[in-house]
């Protein structure tokens, strides 16, 4: 399931540069996304992790222009889908991209499925609109899609309404809708967070098998570092509206560099390893985002904070091959590795 290295040679399907989004609220400006850059290649899955409010959803909603403006305002950056800047597309062209070239799945399928239309209608409608299929073609494809995501007897379920499905099945239907037009990019925002673990395991298995079949690029937002470990090729860690670390999944878990990532991995209790008497915890609270970051956003909670962290926000730089980090500090093991090439 590890993505083959060949994907590395391909040009990205999606390339986001310096994305910045603010919200104008009665209490002032919220700096939700403060210069986020990332790329996604065909056939790969990028996991996005970070705590509540770190800007994961707003980043993805911004690039699909799904945020109401106002209160939101995209104040900078670009989001190239195969060379076209999504942030500068005409509304009609954008509608074609959404649900066509970019599919999305959100956390709560009940809010994204329309309760008054049948599942069959909600599946065939984008096929007819985006791909110009006839009614019977669209119906046949809808049946294929439902069986692809593991809904038994799909012909019989087309006329059912969302409330007639369980939570796990609704999420499968959402995935089927997102996949309907063979998108180049699938954006999944906490698609399994509301589900039970045994149902989540079903969905994750499904996604693993579909990836091999479909070859699209997938962005998978989650706060669960376990989920990411199992399905992602690369991982972006967000904090305070910024990407603070980015690496291949094996590299990130084996050699985390950012103090936030390191602390996060240490606070997790383990299901299989040794148990510690006391959990490591991260003191303090996440930032308020009422100011654009002029210092490192993690500084107030960081155990390695020093003067420079308070004076200058560290840029995201490649600190080891394919491993980017935004931090003025470097882990001791990394420093010693590069200075004396001895194993510790």
């Amino acid at each position, binding site marked *: 399931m590890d993505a083959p290295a060949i994907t590395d040679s391909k040009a990205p399907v999606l390339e986001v540069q310096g994305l910045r989004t603010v919200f104008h609220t009665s209490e002032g400006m919220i700096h939700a996304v403060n210069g986020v850059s990332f790329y996604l290649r065909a056939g790969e899955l990028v996991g996005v992790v970070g705590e509540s409010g770190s800007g994961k959803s707003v980043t993805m909603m911004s690039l699909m222009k799904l945020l109401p403006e106002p209160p939101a305002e995209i104040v900078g950056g670009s989001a190239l889908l195969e060379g076209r800047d999504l942030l500068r597309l005409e509304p009609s062209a954008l509608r074609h991209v959404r649900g066509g070239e970019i599919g999305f799945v959100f956390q709560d399928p009940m809010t994204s499925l329309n309760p008054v239309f049948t599942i069959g209608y909600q599946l065939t409608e984008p096929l007819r609109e985006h791909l110009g299929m006839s009614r019977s073609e669209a119906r046949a494809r809808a049946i294929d899609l439902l069986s692809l995501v593991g809904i038994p007897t799909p012909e019989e379920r087309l006329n059912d309404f969302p409330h007639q499905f*369980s939570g796990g099945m609704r999420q499968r239907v959402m995935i089927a809708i997102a996949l309907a037009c063979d998108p180049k990019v699938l954006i999944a925002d906490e698609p399994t967070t509301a589900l*039970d673990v045994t*149902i989540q*395991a079903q969905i994750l298995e499904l996604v693993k098998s579909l990836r091999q079949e479909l070859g699209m690029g997938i962005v998978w937002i989650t706060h669960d570092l376990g989920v990411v470990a199992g399905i992602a090729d690369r991982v972006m860690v967000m904090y305070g509206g910024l990407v603070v670390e980015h690496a291949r999944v094996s590299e990130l878990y084996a050699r985390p560099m950012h103090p936030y990532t390191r602390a996060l991995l240490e606070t997790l*209790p383990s299901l*299989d390893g040794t148990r510690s008497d*006391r*959990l490591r915890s991260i003191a303090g609270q996440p930032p308020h985002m009422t100011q654009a970051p002029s210092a490192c956003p993690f500084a107030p909670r960081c155990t390695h904070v020093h003067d420079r962290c308070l004076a200058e926000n560290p840029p995201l730089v490649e600190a080891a091959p394919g491993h980017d980090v935004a931090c003025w500090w470097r882990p001791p093991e990394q420093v010693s590795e590069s200075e004396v090439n001895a194993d510790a």
Partner: protein
Amino acid sequence: MLDHAISDETLLSVQNLSKHFPVYKGIIRHQVGVIKAVDGISFDIRKGETLGLVGESGCGKSTAGRTILRLYDATEGTITFGGQNVAELSGESLRRIRPRMQMIFQDPQACLNPRMTVSSIIAEPLDEHATVKGRAKQDRVSELLDAVGMNPRFANRYPHEFSGGQRQRIGIARALALDPDFIVCDEPIAALDVSIQAQVVNLLEELQSRLGLTYLFISHDLSMVRHIADRVAVMYLGKVVELADREQLYADPKHPYTRALLSAVPIPNPEVETKRTRIILKGDVPSPANPPKGCRFCTRCPEAIEKCHSVEPDWRKLGDGRHVACHLAE
């Protein structure tokens, strides 16, 4: 889990406890059935211990916790606490036992009145049970805030001025106000960020060892339960299907549902994850209004034999001391 003294003394004993909710239909609201949210569960909790209660959404964990605290009346069964059957108490004797059993809720937001200051929220149980007044009451509030790691200067602020983790601390301070012996913690960290969860769990453990508290810790986070619990009970569709010491349960689960549940939990280690083979359960949890005949897990159990579809397995004690309800377990 910090070192804490677990005595041999049983603090709470639940025997054959059930809570059924009637299902009504139509304008005249005649009863058409029952939801067997909790359906005959039994366990003991020793003084000073933490019993973890795990299982999927809707399996009856919260209902079990609330019934034990007499927030719901039990349909059947006994709840022995302090030498009395709490299920049968009423009036003054129920009022007298309530302070000894408290609850911490999942959503700290929902259970804190937004128009009350932190001080009055924490003092409310003190007022209700008229234990202390005036200066002594304010001192007690400060002491409680201090105990949960919050600055007593915050006493006159309102809940919305605090973060989720801080609000959960306020909820804990309130639960501690009357010096309880036993606390039902119902998903106390589920609404919190990962980086804040550890703060709250550490606090719960510190308080336990300092005050000799006994917890029923309800959670769907099996890794966290492994950290905090001494023993673990696994529920499925209103029944406890396995109850074992923590190490036994995680190292060698005996019930096929426990095995599937543990195997479904993602582990934050890519090397482990790629090598793991998962038990993927088919389908969804059946409705508790119409549970399957025989073993309730038979419709999804990968190991079910014919007998499982007709005969309900007994709640048995195995050689190693654990309890399990499965025909095949040995």
